[in-house]
Structure formats: C-alpha cells, structure tokens
C-alpha cells in the first residue's frame, strides 16, 4: 500500500467543490468509500434559521503558517487513526457572503467507515485547533467576533472517548 495522499490548501480564492471532488475521485478510483464535507457561510447566526438573526457578510482571519501547520497535524492524526487512501483539505480566509464555500474536506478509504470517520474527525478537530477566526456582519453593519462553541469542544473531545 502506498502511503496515504495529502493535499492541504489555505487560500483566499474560492474553490469548486464538485471539480475538486471529481479530481479526487479520478486519482482514487478504487477507494470503496469517499466521504466529503463542504462548509458554507450561513445567512443567519444561531442553531437554526427560524431562531437566528440574519447575517450579510463574514470575514475569516487566519494565522498564516500556523494554519497550514495545524491542518497538516490534524490530517496526520486522522491518518494515524484510520487507514485512509487520500485526504484533501481546503480552508479559505478573507471575505465571504452568505452561501460562499468556506471549507472542503474529502477522505478516501477502502470502506465507508474509515472514510466517514476521518472526514468527520478532521472537521471536528480543525474547528478547535486550526487558527481561523470568524467575524460576522449583520444587516445594520455591526460586526461580531464569533465565540467558540462548547459543542465544538465536546465534538472534538468525543473522538478520544471511543
């Protein structure tokens, strides 16, 4: 078995999730399971749209260098835990409008279990380890730094209790 592939990108430019998925599938044709996740900017703040307050824009600040390094560490940890064939992570920074893609994670493995687990794990861990900070803007122009959610910490920690 060749060592698992890794492709990690931190970029301002948008990405084409479908094109990335197809390129990823083309280079992993016989991986039985390919799990992926696209994070998009919501148009509301909160758990659901009905209870939330509207958002019009967002800025994602990041720590250049450390962002790439932390994402690489998270992917390495995933590859240590599961037998992945290949992993892709793209995380954007800069200015966003509702609906814009923020993050893409794709993981390939022989079977669906490790593909889903690796993809989900990478999302949970990057949420608490990768140095990105969201600042949201409401319709009145006011800006708010998003606060870290306890539920994200809980999701990241649950991987150590399995």
């Amino acid at each position, binding site marked *: 078995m060749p060592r698992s592939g890794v492709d990690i990108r931190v970029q301002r430019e948008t990405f084409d999730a479908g094109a990335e998925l197809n390129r990823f599938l083309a280079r992993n044709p016989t991986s039985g399971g390919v799990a992926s996740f696209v994070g998009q900017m919501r148009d509301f703040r909160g758990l659901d749209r009905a209870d939330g307050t509207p958002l019009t824009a967002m800025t994602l600040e990041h*720590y250049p260098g450390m962002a790439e390094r932390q994402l690489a560490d998270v992917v390495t940890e995933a590859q240590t835990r599961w037998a992945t064939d290949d992993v892709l992570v793209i995380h954007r920074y800069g200015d966003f409008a509702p609906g814009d893609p923020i993050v893409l994670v794709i993981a390939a493995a022989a079977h669906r279990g490790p593909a889903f687990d690796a993809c989900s794990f990478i999302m949970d861990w990057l949420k608490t380890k990768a*140095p990105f*900070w969201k600042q949201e803007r409401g319709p009145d122009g006011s800006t708010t730094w998003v606060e*870290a959610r306890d539920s994200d910490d809980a999701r990241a920690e649950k991987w150590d209790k399995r």
Partner: protein
Amino acid sequence: MNVLYFAWVKEKVGISEETVTPPADVTTVAQLTTWLAARSPKHAAAFKDARLVKVAVDQVHVPPSTSIAGAREVAFFPPVTGG
C-alpha cells in the same frame, strides 16, 4: 521575540505584531502575558481576562505554564472559530 495578535486580541491591543525583549525573569507564557499586559492600557484591556486568550509558541498551541526559552514567535488569540 516576535509577538503576534489576532482577531479581537489584535483589535484591543491595536497592533498585529511587535518585537519585544522581556527581562530574564520572564520565563513562561503566563509570565510573558502578565509582562505584556503592563505595556499599555490597550495591552491591559486585551489581557484583562487572560483565560480568554489562547497562546501559540512557534505556531504550536501551548498552556500558560510553557517555557518561552528560545521562542522566536509567540501569538495571542481568542479560541479559534474556523471551519
């Protein structure tokens, strides 16, 4: 030593980066935080509740007790919220 600030920590301090030379008795992240907080009222405001501020030494997350011996780059920021 290069010190970096991000997100609301940066906004409160008012600068994104500064080069500092702490005295020899400042040996841990916690001591560096206290020493930086005394540099200006803005620094003091940023570090008012130091538990809210996370620290990375040379791009690795560290707890307050970590030594800063040999550190080239120390960064202060809120809990991360990307993804």
